[in-house]
């Protein structure tokens, strides 16, 4: 039987004292928001403790340089519910989230933004929804409080694209406020900018996904850390996700699709080079055109190359035993 990742940082706590809900908050230069956030989080979680059980808050500092770190050290020293994970440098939101997920001890993990735009009082609702029998509950910022041109429009386009590509019917993939069962986050293995695709990746694991409208507040302190430039990256990532979700089991199909246009070019050039069309009859061109044929040969060569890359991909998948592990995970969780 394959062994899965046990939480690596469970040294100080045993199962009996481990918190039930872990809230993971990536932070980057949020010194103005941090105290309020901590207060309202402690508040929302503390007052719902009867329903939610014990909790911990994992603040992951992504290499801030505005004093967030010092504040975090103080908070973590004062409040036993808080653990602060400090990155030495800025590694990106996905990395911060992934570090938080790895250190989370609760059986339920909640992720949220550190900029006070999410409302901590939504957490109990998300958890309740999770307990209705779901594995991931995504927040849906139904009434977003952001500027239209720079945030809403790109986000709408991105969400539409993501929905279309992944087939997971979630309205708002960009909302960080989500609740998960621990087994999901332990097996997600986020990297790069994958946090946008958590729902899709979770669906790949066989998680049951739903969404819940949550509140969204306008930003009051600090600067938004996104820009328009991420659209291109999102599109590239989307191609990857599409491939990984739909074709990961059979990458040769994907590479076949990629090679298909090259073969089309090959056939077309061959036709133009060798055939002539005279007086309504198709004839063979004996003094064929060198450049067409050369072009055709090139297209065919590269086409085969691309197609054969698919075998490399298959090889990699076989060698990594990726799907065997994944199927084992899904089967275990589905049987539970």
């Amino acid at each position, binding site marked *: 039987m394959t062994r899965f990742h046990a939480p690596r940082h469970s040294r100080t*706590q045993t199962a009996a004292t481990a918190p039930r809900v872990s809230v993971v908050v990536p932070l980057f230069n949020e010194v103005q928001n941090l105290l309020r*956030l901590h*207060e309202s989080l402690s508040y929302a979680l503390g*007052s719902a403790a009867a329903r939610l059980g014990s909790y911990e808050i994992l603040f992951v500092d992504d290499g801030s340089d505005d004093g967030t770190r010092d504040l975090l050290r103080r908070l*973590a020293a004062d409040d036993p519910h808080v653990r602060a994970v400090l990155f030495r440098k800025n590694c990106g939101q996905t990395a911060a989230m992934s570090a938080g997920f790895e250190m989370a001890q609760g059986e339920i993990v909640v992720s949220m933004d550190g900029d006070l735009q999410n*409302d901590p009082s939504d957490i109990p609702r998300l958890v309740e929804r999770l307990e209705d029998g779901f594995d991931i509950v995504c927040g849906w910022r139904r009434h977003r409080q952001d500027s239209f041109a720079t945030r809403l429009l790109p986000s709408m386009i991105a969400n539409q694209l993501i929905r279309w590509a992944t087939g997971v019917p979630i309205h708002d993939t960009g909302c960080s406020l989500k609740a998960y069962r621990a087994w999901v986050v332990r097996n997600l293995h*986020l990297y790069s900018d994958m946090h946008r695709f958590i729902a899709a990746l979770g669906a790949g694991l066989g998680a049951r996904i739903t969404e819940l409208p949550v509140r969204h507040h306008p930003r009051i302190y600090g600067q938004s850390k996104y820009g328009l430039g991420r659209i291109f990256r999102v599109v590239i990532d989307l*191609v990857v996700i599409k491939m990984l979700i739909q074709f990961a089991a059979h990458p040769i199909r994907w590479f076949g699709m990629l090679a298909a246009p090259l073969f089309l070019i090959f056939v077309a050039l061959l036709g133009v080079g060798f055939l002539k069309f005279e007086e309504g009859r198709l004839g063979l061109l004996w003094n064929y055109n060198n*450049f067409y044929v050369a072009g055709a040969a090139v*297209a065919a060569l590269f086409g085969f190359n691309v197609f054969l890359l698919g075998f490399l991909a298959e090889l990699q998948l076989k060698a990594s035993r990726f799907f065997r592990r994944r199927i084992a995970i899904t089967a275990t969780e589905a049987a539970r």
Partner: protein
Amino acid sequence: MVGHTDADFVSVVIPVNNPSVDVGRLVQGYSEPLRSAGYPFELIFVLDGVHGRIVEDLAELSSEHPVKTVRLQGDGLGESIALSAGVARARGAFILNVPQYLQVEPDDLVKIVQALESGADFVATWRHPRVDPWLNRVQSTVFNWVLRAVMGIRFHDLNSGVRGMRRQVLEEVSVYGEMFRFLPVLALRQGFNVVEVKVRHREEQGTLPFYGIGVYVRRVLDILAISFLTRFTQKPLRFFGILGIIAILIGIAVSLNPLYERVIQDVSIADRPIFVLGVILVAFGVQLIGFGLVGEIIIFTQASQMRDYRVDEVVQVEGPQPSDGAVADAVDAALGRAEPREDSPALRVRELLPGEDARWDAFVHGHEHGSFFHLSGWRRAVEETFHHEAHYLVCEQGRAWRGVLPVFHIRSPFLGKQMISVPYGVYGGVLAGDEDVQQALIDAACQQGRRLAAGYLELRHLAPRPGDRVRFDLYVTFRKELPATVDEVLPSIPKKARAEVRRARDRFSMTFEELDDVSVFFELFSEEKRRLGTPSLPQSWFENLREEFGKAVVLHVVRDADRRPMCAVMSFLYKDAVYAYYSGSSNEARGKGVADFVYCKIMEWAIERGFRVFDFGRSRRDTGAAKFKQNMGFEPEPLHYDFTLLRADAKLPEFHPSNPKLQGPRRMWSKLPKGVANRVGARLSRYLP
């Protein structure tokens, strides 16, 4: 093997691969400045494929000087491995890596150690001024320039053989091959604090006169490899994809012209090799994208083994998690229930910040006068529907909350500008522990109101509050304790109303049930409003309330024998009370006792669910509605609506349905067609809070 490391112990690691090095001079040169600066130190010579006399020399020196020797098994393993082996034997927290000849003035070693001591993790050196042969200098300059261009990192002299670092750096940054040269770059990428220190260059006999060109070509390739690995390991398709797309676009652009001429103008492209180039570029681009995809698959399947972040430290309180008692204490402190200390800080009023809604609601919940209309959800529903400007004020003492006041700024053509706590609700006003806090909150609201040019501040208090303000005596409210059991409800209703209830139930076979569809309720609500000649609230208001409060908002409906809806009520559930708040009945329901029936049933429903208080809502004194409520056995209870006039010319509002001047417009309103009345009413109701 690594013993105790002292805080300022310096380990000097000297990889040696040249057997003719004069180790005596090296030991002399390197130990002199460190000893005189007072640092404890050791010199570690790593012999990389070097044998013979040098070993004996070192053994001899070790009797007088702190010299250690590490002999690598093998031949010419390279500086990276030598460095790692040396550091493994080193006991210092600070590592100095120096070359096997005196490349810089030894005195400058002290500068490096000092930089490390003052907080740097890695110290790169810049030999300045250079005393190399000119060709070396040119090559070195070009190399550093390329580095800067490719990686965007500013180091003047990456080839310098002298570097200082904390032990930790080498534990995290793995070096192999020629990579030791890029240690400062790699350390910086890992987030270490890297500084550059100027050192004096020194002509030394041991060096080669010129480096070959090939050395630098290798180094540039190394840079590219590092740059690729650090930037695109996790996202191969971003790198290959952009290259591929560029290639495809160029390819298409290049081959378009020949293709166009061939197809349209029938010009032969036999002499147009550029067409083939275009095809090659397109095909090449597709292949690059293919590479990127293979890369993505590799990364995806290996993701479980990758961690692309560096945790500096984890801060947490050691020991077990606190018990629930501690949680309760924290909650108390946050709510202001904890006793204020002797040296308590001054009161401070501020506006509620986003993310504090949960705390606000908890405060309202904990306060004896806290009502449904004080909840933060009311604010969101009002903002969402009517777009009024909310100012929710919090009075803080230190970190503890001492009081709250929800207030809205409303601009209305009928009523002028005003501050209301709270609009559309019947109870509102200050929730505070004592009079000081209350006054601080009211003062802050007045100040806010004056700034916004509001005429008055209206506080819709249910219970009287201390202080002397203008009282507005138009409304009364009706509240009653519910009987203990369902069976006692009907007997508790006065005889006349009881007969009405029975009439609706028995003669008209009305049925009572919970309702899910807001539009059914709205239909009846707006019909009744039109009949009364007042604008109806918009349907979105009721929908928003439902969305905001969820199960705390319930709808009930009474249907007649044909299951047509006759009367519907929207009630709010909060604390131990049911607020039967909005109601509507159809024209046909008149004279059938439907109203008596529905409220009787709601009371029974509330008792079944454990509620103890029934709130019938406010009415104007001596109106039909007030009489109806009295007939149901409720006693009028005065409301303590307080007014504070904010301007000299401000006067109390006269725009309410009891004003005789409004009789005409009200009659006209009820003659309007339903569609118009609803649509216009939805707009008007915004101004009638």
